[in-house]
């Protein structure tokens, strides 16, 4: 069982106030514990937590490049096997490093079946470099490389279904989670690090700076993402969905979209009903696929 009182991610780091990934880092370490080696990719978390000589990490930690955390972790796994050591190996990487530039290394690592846990903190864009779109950026989100404008309603692509891709690689355990539900993160990480083989957890970590909301609302917005059906918390074991967070009454996506500057162009100067409907359809499809609707009226 995870020791929730341990603090292996120290204060003094340089994340924005209210940072979702920073919160995730603390919670991940509570789930993983002190007998853990963390492998980081270049990104917000790496940059705000390790400007030489200040490091916020109280466990062994390594950063190599943007795209190779999974390969570095594979090497660590091979070395630990040879040396007879039992530390957990946990990759903590952003969505840019995971969905795009890191695909090659992740695919290889999962194919080889290394005993690692790969955790993607998903703030849905390349945040550290100034908010550019990634393969995880939701449809119609405004970013600096997918800006809304006269000829554009924002990001044109749908969010890549990476959990499904890694489940298809034969990962024994794949899960999604959110900083809105901190105990759920701790439990899922604790579970994953104790499962033999390559496990994947994708955590939605709202970014106040990149999404455009007040840092105090990081947890509140995470809850709304789930309440709208645009983010679904679930677990897959050996490729089969085994647990899903269901919703008593799903909220319309509009309630979530209105809270963030990155979707403001869908409402001002006038409402873009067609695009809002498309996003609603994405949420509806999620609801259908995962069976999240309980449709219970609150009395």
């Amino acid at each position: 069982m995870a020791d929730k009182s341990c603090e292996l991610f120290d204060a003094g780091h340089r994340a924005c106030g209210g940072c979702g990934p920073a919160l995730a880092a603390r919670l991940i370490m509570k789930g993983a514990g002190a007998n853990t080696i963390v492998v980081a990719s270049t990104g917000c978390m790496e940059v705000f937590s390790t400007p030489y000589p200040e490091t916020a990490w109280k466990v062994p930690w390594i950063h190599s490049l943007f795209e190779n955390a999974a390969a570095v972790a594979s090497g660590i796994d091979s070395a630990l096997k040879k040396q007879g050591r039992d530390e957990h190996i946990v990759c903590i990487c952003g969505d840019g490093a995971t969905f795009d530039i890191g695909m090659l290394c992740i695919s290889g690592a999962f194919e080889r079946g290394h005993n690692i846990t790969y955790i993607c903190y998903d703030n849905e864009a390349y945040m550290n470099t100034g908010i550019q779109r990634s393969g995880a950026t939701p449809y119609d989100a405004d970013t600096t490389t997918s800006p809304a404008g006269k000829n554009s309603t924002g990001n044109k692509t749908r969010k890549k279904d990476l959990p499904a891709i890694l489940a298809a690689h034969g990962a024994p355990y794949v899960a999604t989670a959110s900083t809105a539900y901190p105990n759920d993160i701790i439990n899922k990480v604790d579970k994953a690090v104790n499962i033999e083989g390559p496990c994947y957890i994708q955590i939605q970590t709202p970014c106040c700076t990149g999404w455009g909301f007040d840092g105090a609302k990081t947890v509140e917005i995470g809850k709304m993402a789930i309440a709208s059906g645009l983010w679904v918390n679930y677990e897959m074991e050996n490729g089969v969905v085994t647990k899903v967070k269901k919703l008593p009454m799903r909220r319309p996506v509009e309630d979530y979209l209105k809270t963030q500057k990155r979707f403001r162009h869908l409402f001002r100067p006038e409402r873009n009903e067609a695009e809002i409907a498309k996003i609603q359809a994405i949420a509806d499809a999620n609801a259908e696929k995962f069976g999240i609707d309980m449709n219970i009226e609150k009395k």
Partner: protein
Amino acid sequence: MMQIMEGSHAVAEAVKLIKPDVVSAYPITPQTHIVERLAEMAADGEIDSEYVCVESEFSALSVCLGASAAGSRVYSATSSQGLILMAEVVFNVAGMRLPIVMSIANRAIGAPLSIWNDQQDSIALRDSGWIQLYAEDVQEMSDLHFLAYKVSEDHDILLPSFVCFDGFILSHTYEPVDIPTQEEVDAFLGPYNAYQMLDAKNPISMGMYATPDYYLEFRYENDAAMVRSAEALKVAGKAFGEQFGRDYSGLVESYKMEDADVAFVALGSICGTIKDAIDEMRENGVKAGLVKIRCYRPFPAEELRAALSGVGTVAVLEKNISLGSAMKGAVGPEVKDAMDGTGTAVFSYVAGLGGRDIRKRDVAAIADLALKGEGNMFYGLREELI
């Protein structure tokens, strides 16, 4: 024990004796025979390494990086396109001061695609911070690996090394080679003892980022280690000679330089051809000599200057091209710089790119051109094609 062996297999035998914990490499012509032989050894239990088949060269060196950071001795090998693909990791490993040793079966870089030998691949990464050693024959191919691990893993050095040898010409050629015993190698090398590593019992953060206040000094430290490695290579090379009977205390090696009018400078297997050509040239009254560069990084400027002292003309045989540079080759300018103020004329000759043969008569022809003062050119162009 003296055996006739293919160059690649001699390297595999050397790696077997070095006992890396983790081997990770991606197949690429002409390195493939090394990794195939190592895979065979792993399958038969002849080596006890974790053999990790990866999805690209980029991943191969990244796997080695992780394993090395976790405290294990590692090995990899590549060529050409693979080396350039992993270039980002190459710089990263050197900056992180991880003592990784990698064999480079030198091969031309595309485009145009070529599987044949030249030295463009390793020379293109001369700025990366890796020690670079070049083998003339299969014996050196084997021996230089032991030397590389010894110096790389020295806590006073901690720089990764390339052991380079000409693809096909050496990798696929059978020559007699003396493979040492396990006891001899254990006595020379010993087990790997990491300077710092990932360990939950003693946590550190590795590969942090450096602000402008720190970056310059980190690069200085890399350079300082590179400078120290010259002496470390000489010392280890001498110790190797004392133990195994083949001395490697010279970063350069001279051949018939005592009274040379024209001296060749070259890297790798072409030196064998040049030596034979020199013997013939001398019979024809041309006093030629050779200074072979065995260690290209750190660049042996002092040793070259001493070895080339008194020579009127130097012809640098370049199996590489530095497109856009005045001398055309990459090695020439550094040789010229080493001879600055001596009055020696230094010329570069780009030859043998993409596996084009260099024959003894070509060597003699280049000597002629150099003595006439014609240089910094391509040698052996097929005029009808251009």
